């Protein structure tokens, strides 16, 4: 099963259906613990790729390797067909791979605009910007309002509100907006609703759906199987550091996925054949 990466590589062709992000034969071990044993993953434009697996299956490690937080022992990553190597999360981010973490990655006391632009503030033109390093607060606020509106986060009305005055779902929406707003190519969401209540999770799921429909490819890690079955086009099941199966929610049941995940059932489809 671990050798199917070769086949998948062969099927890689340029064109509209070419994957935006591909990881090939990813290996990673921590001391004697092998977390990834040759994982292959493709993400296509406009799809949500679900990523599930039991604890220790290698989900987090895979995501860390793709997003530059960890360096894989071996394996290659292709972004839009180009081989890329990331030395740190910032490099991955600059290349267009954004990660939304389960812990709310926003500064609670800063307002929404400051959070959206944190680390990429816009300065004013002229000497006020170059000499006095003055921020262009007005432009940032206007663009932030537009971005929030275009993402359909209707419940956010005041862009100058401190994030801590927002509900958990709205806060996560701000984190998602920040990740999606700046020309990112792939959005990775690591259990974005794990810290949220049922209703707030629903808000975030809606946001994911609208992002998917706008064409942004998303890798979604979640333990919330019903939500995954709702949102994902394909679900990759990791088990013991390998892709055990890739299922299409339209054709497979959640029970099947759980069975494969836990090893109770061997995968009926070989991985890489898209269900």
């Amino acid at each position, binding site marked *: 099963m671990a050798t199917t990466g070769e086949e998948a590589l062969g099927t890689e062709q340029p064109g509209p259906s070419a994957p935006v992000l591909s990881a090939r034969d990813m290996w990673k071990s921590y001391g004697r613990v092998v977390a990834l044993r040759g994982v292959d993953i493709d993400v296509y434009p406009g799809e949500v790729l679900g990523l599930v697996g*039991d604890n220790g299956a290698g989900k987090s490690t895979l995501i860390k390797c793709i997003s530059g937080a960890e360096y894989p022992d071996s394996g290659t990553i292709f972004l839009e067909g180009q081989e890329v190597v990331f030395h740190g*999360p*910032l490099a991955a*981010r600059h290349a267009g791979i954004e*990660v939304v*973490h*389960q*812990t*709310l*990655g*926003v*500064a*609670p*006391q*800063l307002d929404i605009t*400051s959070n959206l632009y*944190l*680390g*990429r*503030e816009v*300065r004013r033109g002229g000497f006020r910007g170059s000499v*006095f*390093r*003055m*921020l262009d*607060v007005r432009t940032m606020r206007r663009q932030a309002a537009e971005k929030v509106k275009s993402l359909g986060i209707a*419940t956010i009305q005041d862009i100058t*509100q*401190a994030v*801590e*005055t*927002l*509900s*958990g*779902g709205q806060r996560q929406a701000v984190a998602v907006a*920040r990740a999606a707003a700046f020309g990112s190519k792939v959005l990775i969401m690591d*259990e974005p*609703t*794990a*810290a*949220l*209540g*049922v*209703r*707030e*999770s629903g808000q975030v799921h809606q946001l994911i759906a609208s992002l998917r429909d706008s064409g942004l490819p998303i890798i979604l890690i979640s*333990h*919330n*199987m*019903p939500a995954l079955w709702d949102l994902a086009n394909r679900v990759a099941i990791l088990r013991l550091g390998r892709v055990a199966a890739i299922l299409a929610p339209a054709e497979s049941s*959640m029970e099947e996925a*759980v069975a494969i995940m*836990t*090893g*109770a059932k061997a995968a009926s489809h070989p991985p890489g054949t898209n269900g």
Partner: protein
Amino acid sequence: MANLPRQDQLVSDRGPEPPRAVPAGQREAHHAEALEAARHRHRWQGPLYSLQRLLHRHAALGPLLVLVLSAGVFELLHPGFLRLENISLMLQQLAVLGSLAIGQTMIMLTAGIDLSVGALMILAQMIMGELAINSGVDPVLALVIGVAFGALMGLVNGALTARVRLPPFIVTLGTLGIFTAIGLRLSGGATLFFGGSALAGSAISSSSNALLWTGTFLSIGSFTVTTGVLLMVALYIVFAYVLAWTAWGRHVYAVGDDLNAARLAGIRVRSLIASVYVVAGAIYGLAAWVQIGRVGSVSPDISSTLNLDSITAVVIGGTSLFGGRGVMIGTLFGALIVQVFNTGLELVGVNALYLPLAEGILVISAVALDHWIRAIKD
């Protein structure tokens, strides 16, 4: 099959509780109404909620109210308290502490604390005095070296905090002792006078010595300030601007607010924290200049309460000890409040023991208020 995830894990949210410490049951109840409630909340939450929101939005408002109120009370108790002469005097007495509190504010915004602030200021002025008085270095050069030395020692604090990752409380507790000891060793505990003696020092006009320039008096009618006061005000304006209008300022808040979020946003948090201590150190160097101008000599025996007083002023000024919240103008109000109590209690003729008591109550009230404001919900 033993590893099969439990049903509740599959269908509902799991993982750690959200940052706010609200019981789960209450949380669910809250979420059930959250959407509808958010739009109308301010209407039926009552005046207390409005006040909380107001104070949350404007961190300097609380300190300003306390300042106006306390100044008014002392004016009632001692008519003439708010005469221009007295205000002038208070500002002059405030200049050193007020300048130090600027650096302390920025450090506390990063969720740090600087216990060595007064000791570093004293050491910086000992260096300036030693160079200018005993070594015959040009006063301007001595000043520049002194300020640079402050920045360098700030870098020591910053590097130990940000790179070695020691708690700033411990780092600056250590450097408090180190700076104090070096300062005393350098001077042998003696005060240095310009021109060799206390009398000669007073004869030297401040225009002939750059180190004494901050003691120059400027009068508009009966309102008299020193250039040291103006320097302090200028520092407040500069750093209020820097905090509010530059990316560096935003990053200072972000780092103190949520270190991880700041790192994830791509801010080089370690360098940023170190840079804050460096800037603060340079400000302490400038405060040393204000101090020299004010007393006209260089002495290691300056009240050692400056270290804690600067923290008091910053906290009363509405800056949170936990970082990320506060504004520069609030610190100015905080320092003014301390000074108003200082002078006011003295003029009213209250036993000097009551000053620390009043300050203590103010500090605790300020932190309690900060806790309440931060508990805001929407």
